[in-house]
């Protein structure tokens, strides 16, 4: 059974058709990337999966269960965690409070501490800043915090919206390393990227979105060497 299955998804913003009938799936244990330019509909798709965006038509199934119109907070409890675009951390809280917030759906106290420790193992930098207000973190640290928050929330499927946006290359590498490590530990990952090279090298499979449609699909390596992709996205 496929972990996530999206069928003929349409998302409209008034008269604007952002996503025009895309279908894709994610198998358990995979890293799947959605790549494409600005306005291709990547973010809308992710937001629709987690219930933040209203779906015009089509269906989204998680582990065979229909979740197209399930509210966002219930989807999180079913095991889909979303790292939203542009970090979206709680700036008025400390790093620790941000992580505690993410543990809202976790009932056992010991489990919360265990997961927090896990997050700090992956991002030792955050541990140093545990009492600091999240506002004072640098862009990279904020993105780390956003990912750490998702680790604390747990969930079997992790959706990441542009994890590399606005970050220095060295931090992008670090984030992608963590993504691959999380994947090895058993988390399935669906990510959005504009940094096509980075996404394709990390992903098992990828879909290329162009103005609301899926134009190509294939394994990460295939697409990385595809002539058309190279011309359009990799600039060679």
């Amino acid at each position: 059974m496929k972990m996530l299955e999206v069928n003929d998804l349409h998302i409209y913003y008034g008269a604007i058709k952002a996503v025009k009938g895309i279908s894709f799936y994610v198998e358990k244990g995979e890293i799947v990337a959605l790549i494409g330019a600005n306005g291709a509909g990547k973010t809308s798709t992710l937001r629709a999966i987690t219930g933040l965006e209203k779906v015009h038509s089509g269906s989204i199934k998680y582990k065979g269960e229909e979740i197209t119109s399930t509210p966002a907070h219930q989807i999180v409890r079913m095991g889909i965690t979303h790292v939203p675009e542009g970090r979206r951390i709680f700036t008025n809280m400390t790093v620790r409070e941000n992580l505690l917030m993410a543990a809202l759906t976790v009932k056992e106290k010991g489990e919360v501490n265990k997961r927090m420790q896990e997050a700090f193992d992956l991002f030792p930098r955050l541990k140093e800043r545990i009492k600091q207000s999240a506002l004072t973190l640098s862009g990279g640290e904020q993105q780390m915090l956003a990912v750490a928050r998702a680790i604390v929330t747990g969930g079997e499927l992790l959706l990441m919206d542009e994890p590399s946006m606005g970050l220095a290359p060295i931090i992008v590498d670090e984030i992608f390393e963590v993504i691959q490590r999380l994947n090895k530990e058993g988390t399935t990952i669906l990510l959005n990227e504009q940094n096509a090279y980075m996404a394709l090298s990390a992903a098992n499979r990828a879909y290329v979105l162009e103005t609301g449609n899926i134009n190509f699909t294939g394994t990460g390596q295939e697409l990385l060497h595809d002539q058309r992709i190279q011309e359009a996205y990799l600039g060679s």
Partner: protein
Amino acid sequence: MNWLKKNRKFIIIPLIYLLVHVLNQAKILNNYILQVLMLIGINLIMVESLNVLTGMTGQTSLGQAGFMAVGAYVSAIVTSILIPAKNFSSAALISFKIGKIGFQITSIPQNLIFLLGTLAGGVVAAIFGYIIGTPSLKLKGDYLAIVTLGFGEVIRQIIRVTPIVGKSFGMVGIPKLANFFWIYFFAMLTIFICRNFMDSSYGRACMAIRDNEIAADTIGINTARYKVIAFVYSAFIAGISGSMFAHTMVYLHPDTFAYTKSTDYVIYLYAGGVGSISGSILGAAALTALPEILRQISNWRLVIYGLLLVLIILFRPTGLFGGREFSFLGLKTGGIKIFHFSDLWSWIGKKKSVEEAGK
């Protein structure tokens, strides 16, 4: 000794009350000052209620006086019409004197009726909070402000045409059941409850919604539910304050609860420090007392009042106490931490409280 240090608030808080009472009995504090202190207490409860809604959850409300009016009128109806307190003996239960200082415990049945009225006022206001909170879930910022503003005015107009509460002539014959003790008690209770709310997972969820609603959604917070909780909670506290107001003033007029009263509370909150309990206390106390202190210079007092507000907004945009809390509140939550003009603060030598807010 350690026990004393840990529980010092349980000693200090009654001591402050005793001090005020003794000073009043010794004629050092006259009844006018006591009345101002009572008003401060009432306003403090109101600002705290607005702080829960605006400061912590980020939902703008310009109709807080509407909730207050509901609480005031409902409690007044209970104590003067449904169970008239005047039918019960008002003789003091116990009264004794230590030197020239008199102490008394006022009539128990009257106090019980008063508490019942207050509870009724709070509950009915909370129901109105639910009625307003639910349909306005999708509204944000200015639009929500307009809805709440409209609500406040609707409540006022309904009161104006309701015969049982005296229509637009105002409601008379409300027993004077509130005294400094009760107002002080409820103000402290409100502070205590708000502090615990702020430090709980509910409070953190509300603050998460204020900081970033999308992120709050993605970590599994039912944003709609928490917004309604904040509305109901805030309205309940406002209703309690309304009851205190009714039984202090003994006369209610619908125009008292006009939108200017709501905006007054918004000003108190923002001047004191939005999102900070200490700020709400300070804002309510300073801005209630200020016009009274400036009363001697009659016409100039509004000028000075306005000027001070402009200065606060210019130099401390997050309010006098924005982002920090009195240490005695013992809050673990960070609250707002945007420091503007913090140099001024360290210059005054309060650097320590900033560090404590960071812990």
